[in-house]
């Protein structure tokens, strides 16, 4: 887990981002550098509005980077592509397609040359089963719950066999029980497939439970990387066992201190 090999799998290298809105320039990200090893699960945590989504979109190639670069396997990536599949916060399933068709669209596009029609069907179903959504394959997004939509979104992203899986607050809009259930699923999938994952969250417990490393961002404007925390808890992790785990409690404490003592959200500061 040493961050300092000279050629990390994914490297966000000295990225700055400035948005101009109505002629006014706001610096959102300032000199952000993150390195992620293959198979690593890294979370980015920070208060709402600090620029987490912006950073993820830069890695995805959806937002252009004026200065700095994103390197994947040592090659600069500037366009979006299926090697960096995104699970969006609001699932982003196409409502006119069924669950199956949503995943199949991605499979058809990514494997048009390498898999036969039959193989693509099997691969679509395989990924739906992976997130336990095979039973609802013929339903439309409007007919399934929020948690199920998010599962399908994850299946669609996994089906692209991405080099890096990008998750933008994937559990943010879900109730606590559904969220816990889905977190366990994601952990199990990560354990099984060994994906490289970059996840955005604002939930401390979620970050500690799922990550190998937690990248903490300071508040905007011009958010920086404030601190990087290793989470040296062995996998597979069990939610119940961790409740009294000393490492878990310490990690949690560190993140909470960072977020609520040293880099309090602007809204919380104003409330005092």
């Amino acid at each position, binding site marked *: 887990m040493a961050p300092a090999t000279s050629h990390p799998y994914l490297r966000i290298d000295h990225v700055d981002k400035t948005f101009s809105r109505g002629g006014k320039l706001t610096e959102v990200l300032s000199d952000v550098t993150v390195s992620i090893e293959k198979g690593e699960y890294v979370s980015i945590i920070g208060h709402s509005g600090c620029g987490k989504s912006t950073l993820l979109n830069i890695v995805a190639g959806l937002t252009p980077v004026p200065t700095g670069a994103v390197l994947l396997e040592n090659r600069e990536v500037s366009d979006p592509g299926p090697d960096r599949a995104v699970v969006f916060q609001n699932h982003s399933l196409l*409502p006119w397609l069924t669950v199956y068709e949503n995943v199949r*669209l991605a499979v058809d*596009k990514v494997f048009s040359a390498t898999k036969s029609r039959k193989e693509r069907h099997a691969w679509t179903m395989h990924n739906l089963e992976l997130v336990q959504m095979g039973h609802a394959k013929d339903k439309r997004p409007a007919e399934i719950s929020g948690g199920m939509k998010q599962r399908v979104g994850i299946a669609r992203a996994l089906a692209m066999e991405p080099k890096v899986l990008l998750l933008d607050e994937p559990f943010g809009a879900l109730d606590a029980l559904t969220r816990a259930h889905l977190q366990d699923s994601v952990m199990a999938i990560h354990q099984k497939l060994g994906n490289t994952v970059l996840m955005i969250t604002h939930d401390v417990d979620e970050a500690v439970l799922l990550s190998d490393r937690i990248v903490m961002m300071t508040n905007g404007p011009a958010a920086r990387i404030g601190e990087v925390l290793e989470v040296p808890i062995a996998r597979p992790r069990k939610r119940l066992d961790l409740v009294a785990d000393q490492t878990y409690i310490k990690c949690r404490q560190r993140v909470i201190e960072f977020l609520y003592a040293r880099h309090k959200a602007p809204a919380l500061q104003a409330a005092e």
Partner: protein
Amino acid sequence: MNMTVLKSETARAMPAPAVSADVVKLKAPKTSFIKTKLVPRVSEISANVLPPLVTIALIMVVWQMLCSKPGSTLPPPTVIWDQAKDLIMEPFFVAGPQDIGLGWRVLTSLQRVAIGYGLAGLIGIALGTIIGQSVWAMRGLDPIFQVLRTISPLAWLPISLAAFRDSQPSAIFVIFITSVWPIIINTAVGIRNIPQDYRNVALVLRLNHYEFFTKIMIPSAAPYIFTGLRIGIGLSWLAIVAAEMLTGGVGIGFFIWDAWNSSRLPDIIVALAYIGGIGFLLDRLVALVAHFVTRGTASN
């Protein structure tokens, strides 16, 4: 006294379940079908059909009373029935080159509408798609379309006649030019309103232009496109009647004009009922197609 009552009640009650159980066993499928499927369905249909029927009946009665007075200018329903019975009962008779049933006339008009509206649909969706993708095209053209769409079908007719010098293409052009604006405008708005999320999905999947057009753009804009198409079909039907009144020929519009010139008021009223009915059916048809094509899209 109390005891006997109780006894006789239990005595009566005892065998009853056995009997009813027997009956239920035998007739269960039929009873449940009638009770769970047929009865609610019939009551649902009658709840939708009865009120309009009652309203129509009431209107007929009032109409009959108002127009039966001596010196009234319009014919009452009974007179219409007497004089225009053949038109009502036989839509598809042919008694001579100009003496044909209203069904035939409606079909001729529908043919013109099909061509004009079909062209308006194709060109309107194509133009709307192009315009919707460009902020500047939208800003530049939208005000012009908003002005053009308010021009009445009849106002286009002289220009159309001058340009085509023939009644058939003129009528079709008038239908086209009347119905194309809402289709263009709504399609363009639909294309502009494609959520960024869907665009992001397309970007991550690296969909090419053609795939983006067929898999994201058209389905996403479909509810808007169908709103335009539905307004368009209504306007087409308005336009055809107006256009045919002036260009002549066989259509339903010309029939009204002809009936007016030979003072056959009952015929005109029957034709009005036809026009209303067909217009209603056309609207429902487009709505039905929209329902099936956009199912799932609107609700999210």
